[in-house]
């Protein structure tokens, strides 16, 4: 890789051993990835605090604390994705009943461990949908370093800032990232035209559509036509599925997303290499795959993957009005939406019906341990293809069944304890 004089000085240790280690990481990573240079981040960083991509270049919590104590700060605006400490729930942990999440000493330890990152300038959004609540977006055309399935298509496709899946302490501390793949204009052009031949109406339709496209495309960049005008919640769901059923990091919706004022612009003037159609049968096939199991006696309902928007939390509160849950219901959101839900009275409504509103975590992060004291459920209901498809792996070798459907299907399961959802 070509390095600037400043980068070479950091690599030689002139800014200390930790900066040197971070630079060594970026250089080795960049060379392995085939990058030719590092680019200055002029957008934002999204990181899982406490996590390191490659142990050989780890920066420990103690080292971060030492840096923070001597006044060192992140070079660029940095936001927190979910904290990966197993069991950490930001809000609602007190009554969740699951160990160690519900133990005050454990909760305090998790908060203490996060403090040095916050001192260095990380904004404590603690959410996979931090981008909905961060109050600060990278401008179109800037370079960023983000993480998380739904966030990567959000930064690239929705915001038009350029990011691979590599946000971390090292990128935030040095404010640099290898320039390749999604950072380069030519790699952001659509190569596949995806025609949606069925009307996408429900939020679930966008979840299923995203998965069907991701499965067919892998790492390719599509232009999506015929998908209507998705709401914020629908975009979040679609992004999550595009980058779980496949590895779609970037897409265009001509006339909607910033790099595609027109269909021609989406392809940067070139012709599509492939044209594919997604039909109602494709959505049905994904729906059937997500319904993994035969039992209809649901014992756990998980909503809010990715973390729900305030509108989704509101809808849950409305659907639960006057009802009583007969099985465990978790509604996951960001700490910031949790505050809004508190102010709007939605948390109270959900809890009055026997449900729980929680923030900053999900069943997957808890390895499926969602039933007190720390057990896995037998039959989970969820409205998220991502959570659905991972949870059986998280619970392995225990065999867990999953029922998948709309938010309404899931609320009905929470109230009755039975799965009545079916393809409609």
């Amino acid at each position, binding site marked *: 890789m070509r390095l600037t004089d400043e980068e070479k000085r950091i690599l030689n240790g002139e800014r200390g051993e930790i900066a040197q280690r971070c630079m060594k990481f970026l250089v*080795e*990573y960049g060379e392995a990835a085939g990058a030719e240079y590092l680019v200055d981040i002029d957008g934002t960083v999204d990181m899982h605090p406490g996590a390191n*991509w490659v142990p050989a270049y780890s920066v420990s919590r103690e080292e971060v604390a030492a840096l923070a104590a001597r006044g060192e700060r992140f070079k660029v605006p940095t936001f927190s994705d979910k904290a990966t400490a197993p069991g950490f729930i930001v809000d609602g942990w007190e009554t969740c009943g699951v160990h160690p999440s519900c133990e005050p000493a454990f909760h305090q330890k998790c908060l203490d461990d996060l403090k040095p990152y916050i001192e260095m300038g990380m904004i404590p959004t603690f959410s996979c949908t931090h981008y909905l609540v961060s109050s600060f977006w990278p401008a179109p055309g800037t370079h960023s370093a983000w993480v998380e399935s739904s966030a990567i298509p959000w930064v690239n496709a929705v915001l038009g800032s350029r990011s691979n899946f590599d946000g971390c302490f090292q990128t935030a501390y040095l404010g640099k990232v290898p320039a390749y793949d999604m950072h380069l204009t030519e790699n952001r052009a659509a190569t596949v035209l995806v025609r949606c031949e069925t009307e996408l109406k429900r939020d679930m339709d966008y979840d299923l559509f995203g998965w069907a496209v991701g499965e067919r495309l*892998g*790492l390719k960049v599509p232009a999506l036509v015929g998908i209507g005008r998705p709401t914020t919640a629908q975009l979040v769901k679609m992004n999550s599925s595009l*980058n779980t059923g496949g*590895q779609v990091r970037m897409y265009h919706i001509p006339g909607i997303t910033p790099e595609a004022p027109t269909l021609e612009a989406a392809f940067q003037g070139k012709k599509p290499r492939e044209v594919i159609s997604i039909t109602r049968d494709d959505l049905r096939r994904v729906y059937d795959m997500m319904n993994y199991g035969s039992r209809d006696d649901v014992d756990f309902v998980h909503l809010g993957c990715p973390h729900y928007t305030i509108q989704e939390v509101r809808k849950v509160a409305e659907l639960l009005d006057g009802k009583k849950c007969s099985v465990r219901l978790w509604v996951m959101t960001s700490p910031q939406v949790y505050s809004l839900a508190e102010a709007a009275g939605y948390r109270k409504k959900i809890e009055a019906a026997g449900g729980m509103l929680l923030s900053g975590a999900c069943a997957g992060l808890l390895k499926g341990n969602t039933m007190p004291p720390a057990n896995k459920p037998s039959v989970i209901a969820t409205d998220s293809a991502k959570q659905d*498809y*991972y949870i059986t792996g998280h619970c392995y070798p225990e065999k867990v069944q999953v029922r998948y459907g709309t938010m309404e299907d899931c609320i009905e399961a929470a109230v009755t304890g039975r799965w009545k959802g079916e393809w409609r």
Partner: protein
Amino acid sequence: MNKQTERIILKGRKVIGGVAEGEALVSKMPLMGWGNVDPQRGYTTERNHPLFEIPFKGKVLVFTEPRGSGGFVSYGMSRMFGTHPAAFVYRKGNNLTVFAAMVANVPTVTDFDQDPTEVIETGDHVIVNGDKGIVEVIKKRKTGR
């Protein structure tokens, strides 16, 4: 030995250097990490996956693409448990495959002149030269012929 051994050379790009060889374990379906790989047991735990519960320890893991979460690096984290593959060979990747290869620190090659999952079959003997970005495939002999 009355049958000639078939040898094929694939030319690609180095990700991680070094030379390793072993039996190929091939996945034509993309690999997925996070909950769907168990680094301790050293195999994929993704339901519906052809490699479900098939150990990759000591194998040359040949696959098409990654998909899903950043937890893909757990394919490399298998190193901590000694269950890691001898080498990675993949058609097309991104930073997730690069990180997994860095963590495992085993010879890794990608971006080939032809699709490795079309050429290599499970059971073939494969020599991965990460330094040169070359993969040599010695086809398994078909039995009963």
